[in-house]
């Protein structure tokens, strides 16, 4: 059975390179993860039906605005209008990308929402929170250290 699991169906381990992807944002712009190399990035998978995700999305958006760190939200509703409506109701300013085909979610093996990953300037995963909102008390100092590196 294990042999049948595709190679990509494994969550990115700590210190491993986060899989690259390009997705369309709710504003119509396409963004590619690798184009953010050179600075730490917070990657956040969420969906509108996930209660803790809403809280997490808003908190991470505020963190991004406060620190100037790119926060990329990947919405898994599969519906651009739905994602835009929720992001609008939460006043999210950071990019919200729509994974309509769930291809990125598969490559990151998103089994629990929300999933938050802290990536360093080289695109490596340095911290992860799955199934619970990211702990900002842990995330913020780690992010600061990465920004100073």
């Amino acid at each position: 059975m294990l042999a049948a699991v595709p190679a990509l169906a494994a969550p990115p381990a700590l210190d491993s390179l986060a899989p690259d992807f390009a997705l369309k944002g709710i504003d119509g712009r396409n963004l590619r993860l690798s184009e953010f190399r050179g600075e730490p990035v917070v990657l956040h998978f969420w969906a509108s039906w996930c209660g803790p995700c809403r809280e997490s999305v808003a908190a991470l958006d505020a963190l991004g605005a406060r620190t100037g760190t790119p926060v990329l939200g990947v919405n898994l509703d599969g519906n651009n209008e739905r994602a835009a409506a929720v992001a609008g109701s939460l006043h999210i300013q950071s990019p919200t990308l729509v994974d309509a085909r769930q291809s990125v979610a598969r490559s990151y093996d998103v089994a629990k929402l929300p999933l938050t990953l802290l990536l360093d300037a080289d695109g490596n995963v340095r911290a992860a929170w799955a199934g619970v909102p990211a702990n900002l008390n842990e995330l913020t100092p780690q992010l600061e250290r990465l920004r100073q590196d």
Partner: protein
Amino acid sequence: MKSRPNPMPRLVKLAAVLAMLAAPLAAVPSENDAASLKTVDQDVQALKKQLIDLNRDLFKLEEELLYPASTQVAVFLSVDVGTFFALDSVTLKVDDKEVANYLYTDREVQALHRGGVQKLYLGNLKAGSHEIVAFFTGKGPHERDYRRGTTLKVDKAIGAKYVELRISDREASLQPEFVVRQWE
């Protein structure tokens, strides 16, 4: 027949350079020796170059092993002017099977406008007749959503096949034009 790059000599050289580097580190003099540091710096630079060369050779070797010339098919994409079309994505099908679906960021579109050529797809095809279909999605004249498909029948023989998809402007009709060319 083209000879494949052999990475082994480079690996041996790398090992030698690493050994050279390790030796002075094991017996670091107590005082700062500028000449010694300069030598180490030169060795590090040489090592860096060796690594880059080795990486390139391994990449070429991997490509030759995975995509032998007898079956290799590569599809490239370029933009010539392209003022009538803002590229958003390209979907590529070979024999009705989707093999590539690429979403372009602003930066990538700018790179294409500056003359960049993108390797959109690299794969293998058996000798014989095949159909390559490309669907271009983006904004056309007057900011209208625009989707256009273009088809190419290729006869794959022994030897690599290179196909170029080019987006250009048709000035007469003020419309974008999608040209498919085969390179021998």
